[in-house]
């Protein structure tokens, strides 16, 4: 239909404005829905967990159902010990493998290792639990903190391997060549110059890996097993926050279920703290990198 040019222009403009407003509000909605679960979970945890939170909750051992004043002290200590064992296994292996992948990028062995690391990181964690059960629990005849730590450590290996590889590849080749030209051997260049430069990134990735496995439950079910008693022995079953949450939440007792919320809150705070720490390290690294780039680009 013929319309005046001016009127037509205005209609198009209005239509565009309308469409833009609709799209903007749709995107807003999507963002809000994305945030909603986290907000709800946190709110629910705060409401449900706050009732049981108190100094005793952190210092007391679990009590039988019906007996008030139970805590999760053994779960917190157990989780920390498990993470320590996991890091002792996952860190050196992951670091070494990542360094190897980054420095020997295109060899056939590197391609194989990279592929297997990806497969390993995609494995359901319960499969790793079964594997460690076969490997350690069955031969030794008992569930143990060591087995739980190994299971979490195996989970960490691919995470740290791929992160280390990525961070090491970010190190400018110019720094490698500077060290080589001074007479550093290839190995020594990797272990000193390259690793030192990539370190903040690797620390960040390691903290995130620890945070990631801290909440794992499945691989602990038949390795660490859990216990209502205080234990820090490597060769005996050990309590862990996720296991306690699992046991309490699936129990028929109200006070235990309330404690499950409390335990979940503590676990989430722990993971938050680790992620926040990782972020801080990343920020300081970015500042340092910026300083380097600015310095190099000056003049």
């Amino acid at each position: 239909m013929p319309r005046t040019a001016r009127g037509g222009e205005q209609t198009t403009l209005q239509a565009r404005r309308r469409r833009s407003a609709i799209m903007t509000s749709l995107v807003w909605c999507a963002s809000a829905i994305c945030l909603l679960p986290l907000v709800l979970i946190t709110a629910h945890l705060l409401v449900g967990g706050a009732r049981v939170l108190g100094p005793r909750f952190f210092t007391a051992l679990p009590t039988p159902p019906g007996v008030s004043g139970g805590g999760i002290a053994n779960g917190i200590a157990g989780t920390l010990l498990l993470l320590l064992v996991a890091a002792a296994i996952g860190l050196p292996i992951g670091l070494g493998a990542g360094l190897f992948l980054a420095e020997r990028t295109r060899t056939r062995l590197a391609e194989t290792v990279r592929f297997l690391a990806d497969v390993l990181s995609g494995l359901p964690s319960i499969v790793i639990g079964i594997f460690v059960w076969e490997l350690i629990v069955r031969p030794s005849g008992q569930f143990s903190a060591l087995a739980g730590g190994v299971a979490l450590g195996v989970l960490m290996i691919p995470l740290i391997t791929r992160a280390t590889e990525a961070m090491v590849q970010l190190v400018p080749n110019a720094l490698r060549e500077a060290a080589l030209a001074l007479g550093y051997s290839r190995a020594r260049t990797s272990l000193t110059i390259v690793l030192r430069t990539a370190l903040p990134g690797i620390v960040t990735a390691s903290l995130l890996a620890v945070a990631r496995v801290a909440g794992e439950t499945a691989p602990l079910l038949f390795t660490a097993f859990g216990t209502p008693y205080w234990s820090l022995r490597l060769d005996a079953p050990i309590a862990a926050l996720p296991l306690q949450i699992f046991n309490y939440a699936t129990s028929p007792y109200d006070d235990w279920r309330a404690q499950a919320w409390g335990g979940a809150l503590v676990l989430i705070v722990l993971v938050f703290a680790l992620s926040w720490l990782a972020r801080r390290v990343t920020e300081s690294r970015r500042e340092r990198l910026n300083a380097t780039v600015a310095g190099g680009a000056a003049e």
Partner: protein
Amino acid sequence: MTAPLQDASLADAHVRLDAWSVWFASTHALDAVSLVVPRGGVTALIGPSGCGKSTVLRSINRLDDGQAGLRVTGRILLDNVDIHDASIDPASLRRRIGMVFQRSNPFRRSILENVVYGPRLHGLATGDALAAVAERALRRAALWEEVKDRLGEPATSLSGGQQQRLCIARALANEPDVLLLDEPTSALDPGATQRIEELLYDLRTDVTIVIVTHNLQQAARVSDHTAFLLDGRLVEVDATRRLFTSPRDPRTEAYITGRFG
């Protein structure tokens, strides 16, 4: 192709390339380059991008060793010893042959730490003697006066020109016989460039310098000998003044008069 004539007699040769060829996978980077770098003084390598001048430089301290697909033929002699001889350790070779790169690449540590990296590795000095070595290297690189009160500050806090002189000091701290520079001033402003050229002039008496440069005026200003490379071949090498005023090869003349490259 006949070997280009060269003034320097072989007895004066500090570094000598003898029919040196390099392949990276299927790329033929250098084709039978024969070149004599006389002891002392400055030798400049010029030529258009991709002509192989950086490869020549990197061959002299074996920096490309171990690269996938690298294949070489011919010989490189340092003081008449084949640098690929089994008795030569690349690490000690690189101590004797320092290298400075196009972009300054200080380690992310203090100014002092940067300078003592090499001497510490090679055990040239320890303890207090290290500080003396660092001071000497920084003085030779004409940087001492500017940094003597801030040796503990991060090397990245220096300006671009200072960083490049720090990299020169870091290379000199190893007390090398030969200093290789790969377009050391291409990222610097004219003032910083001039300081480095003056520095090279002072260093030439006790170090043999080989410099790759894109800047023909720079080659004319700083070098005693100039070699012109094209497509991986050495076209001509001569005393700098003669090469720039009366080149023998028409391709050299075309390049230095700016007709290509």
